[in-house]
């Protein structure tokens, strides 16, 4: 941030003032989810930087809404001929559920940000108690958006995992409809649990109990998915290519993350671990071990399709393994630290370690793990960049996927398909065989397809 300022010195003063305001605004948390009278309202008139950042987030919110509208409409009206709802890839179901949340949750964030800006500029007492506002209302509004927002992050990831696990187990996905409907169930049910972020903010015991029960029940659709993925792998012919390594890592880490969420949904335990490292560990097991690892799985799965280049699989596996070690080393000790009372936000670790020297080992492990995690991510980046420079050309279907994108060449040509592709079962791998010359999979009885052109012949035998 600071480095950018000298470059702006020659620009007009007003521009500089705007940019400095933005820099200052962005160095604060943009949406502060625990409003305090002194920080949300400010005591010295209007805080321009906050207003600018809030309006920026408002505009971003509308781009998110537009994306959600686009995906819903595309799914409804632009599926290719022959693709019914239950012939869609599960990734598309995941994106559809995500779009529902974007459309329903983001407007509430939008109005919250507008009211916050209005409070700043016009001094209306909406959230700030010093002006007669209600800070609890801000927390309700904030979490009504921000709890569904974590499902916005995880649902596409769950869609990726459904694809990868089926393809690398060479087995039809188990429980297609259950996985598809559980995505939609998460999208809708996820709107009823925001109160579990506010158990200690001030809430009637009845409301807290209802939110706790709803929180437990929202775990069910996620568990349905996990069991269906495990059942898909059962007796499958599992290949441990890099995307599958990340998918298996997702199962393990998301499992721990989800189960630790049950601790937090329990009212009495939540009071004990609120605002401790336990919450930090839980959040990272779900969002890093879940959403980010799923993103890496998807990136490595579709990388050959996106770029037309194969990466070094050994290097990718090594990065995945290193990430697994580094991640657990970073965040598992934080579960232990959290249950022992380590606060979530801390600023003077020297004093902390003087007072509690027994916690230094776990803090050290966590710090070392953070560096290992960073090294693993750098290694994964090196692996992918190397493939762009030196990787061999990717065949149309390197992993043997049965969804439509593997029917066109890698990377896809302009307009994707010269003629509309044949829609079949997205998880029927029976006709696909590995061709060692091509380095990829072809449909049985298509020896003439070795030049890597799109295989558009109907797959039904």
């Amino acid at each position, binding site marked *: 941030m600071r480095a950018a300022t000298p470059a702006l010195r020659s620009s007009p003063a007003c521009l500089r003032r705007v940019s400095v305001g933005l820099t200052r605004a962005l160095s604060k948390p943009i949406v502060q989810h625990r409003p305090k009278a002194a920080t949300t309202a400010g005591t010295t008139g209007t805080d321009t930087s906050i207003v600018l950042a809030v309006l920026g987030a408002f505009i971003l919110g509308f781009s998110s809404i537009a994306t959600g*509208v686009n995906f819903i409409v595309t799914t409804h009206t632009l599926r290719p001929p022959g693709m019914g709802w239950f012939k869609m890839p599960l990734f598309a179901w995941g994106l559809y559920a995500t779009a529902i949340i974007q459309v329903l*949750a983001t407007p509430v964030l939008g109005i919250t940000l507008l*009211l916050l800006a209005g409070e700043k500029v016009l001094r209306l007492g909406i959230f700030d108690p010093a002006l007669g506002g209600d800070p609890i209302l801000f927390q309700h509004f904030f979490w009504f958006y921000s709890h569904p927002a974590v499902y916005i992050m995880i649902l596409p990831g769950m869609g990726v995992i459904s694809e990868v696990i089926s393809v690398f187990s060479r087995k039809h996905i188990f429980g297609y409809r259950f996985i598809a409907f559980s995505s939609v169930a998460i999208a809708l049910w996820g709107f009823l649990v925001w109160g579990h972020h506010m158990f200690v903010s*001030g809430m009637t015991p009845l409301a807290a109990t209802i939110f706790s029960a709803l929180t437990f029940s929202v775990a069910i659709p996620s568990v349905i998915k996990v069991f269906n993925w495990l059942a898909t792998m059962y007796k499958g012919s599992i290949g441990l290519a890099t995307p599958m390594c990340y998918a298996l890592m997702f199962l393990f880490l998301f499992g721990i993350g989800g189960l630790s969420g049950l601790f937090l949904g329990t009212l009495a335990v939540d009071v004990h671990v609120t605002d401790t490292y336990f919450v930090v560990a839980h959040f990272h097991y779900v969002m890093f071990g879940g959403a980010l690892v799923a993103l890496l799985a998807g990136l490595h799965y579709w990388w050959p399709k996106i770029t037309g280049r194969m990466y070094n699989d050994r290097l990718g596996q090594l990065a995945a393994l290193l990430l697994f070690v580094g991640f657990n080393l970073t965040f598992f000790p934080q579960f232990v630290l959290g249950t022992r009372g380590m606060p979530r936000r801390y600023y003077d670790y020297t004093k902390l370690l003087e007072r509690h020297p027994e916690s230094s080992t776990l803090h050290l492990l966590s710090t070392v793990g953070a560096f290992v995690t960073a090294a693993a991510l750098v290694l994964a980046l090196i692996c992918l960049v190397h493939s762009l420079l030196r990787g061999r050309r990717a065949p149309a279907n390197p992993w043997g996927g049965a969804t439509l994108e593997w029917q066109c060449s890698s990377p896809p040509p302009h307009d994707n398909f010269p003629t509309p592709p044949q829609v079949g079962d997205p998880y029927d791998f029976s006709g696909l065989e590995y061709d060692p010359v091509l380095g990829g999979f072809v449909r049985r009885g298509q020896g003439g397809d070795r030049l890597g052109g799109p295989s558009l012949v109907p797959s039904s035998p």
Partner: protein
Amino acid sequence: MSHAEPLAWHPPHLAHHFDTPRQQFAAGKLGMWVFVLTEVLFFGGLFCAYAVYRANHPEIFIYAHQYLDKSLGAINTAVLILSSLTMAWAVRCAQLSQRGGLVLCLVLTLACAAVFLGIKYVEYRHKWEEGLKWAGAYAPKLAREPLSTRDASLPVSPPSTATGRRRGTWGFSSASTLP
């Protein structure tokens, strides 16, 4: 949903990613309905904030309503509803290819909009001159009586928001679960 064969001749108003005008119309219509749904959520948040504010500070609303002009407000409500009718009628005329009716309805709608804005100008100008602005610039000139003599028993000075704040009137905000 219909998947007709792609047209050989591409109409100029048909976007490249659609096969047929019918598909494009279906997509646009669904998109507009979904967008209207987002607006429901958007204004739902606003009404929620209004309801909470009103529950926490009923005295402010009782005080402020003395300064509203009921007849101007009633006229504007009627104008708004009438313009909704003429706009919907205009859409119907367009569907039936009735050009004259369409033009008439649109002109009436625009006229209603002008009347609405004119009345709003009168109302807001009055508020502005009286110093009845938003919270940050609130400086009322209280020398005059409230508009409605029937409510003359009500307080003439504005209640203070900071002292008049009442907690616990809203179910969620009671802090009784805290140890």
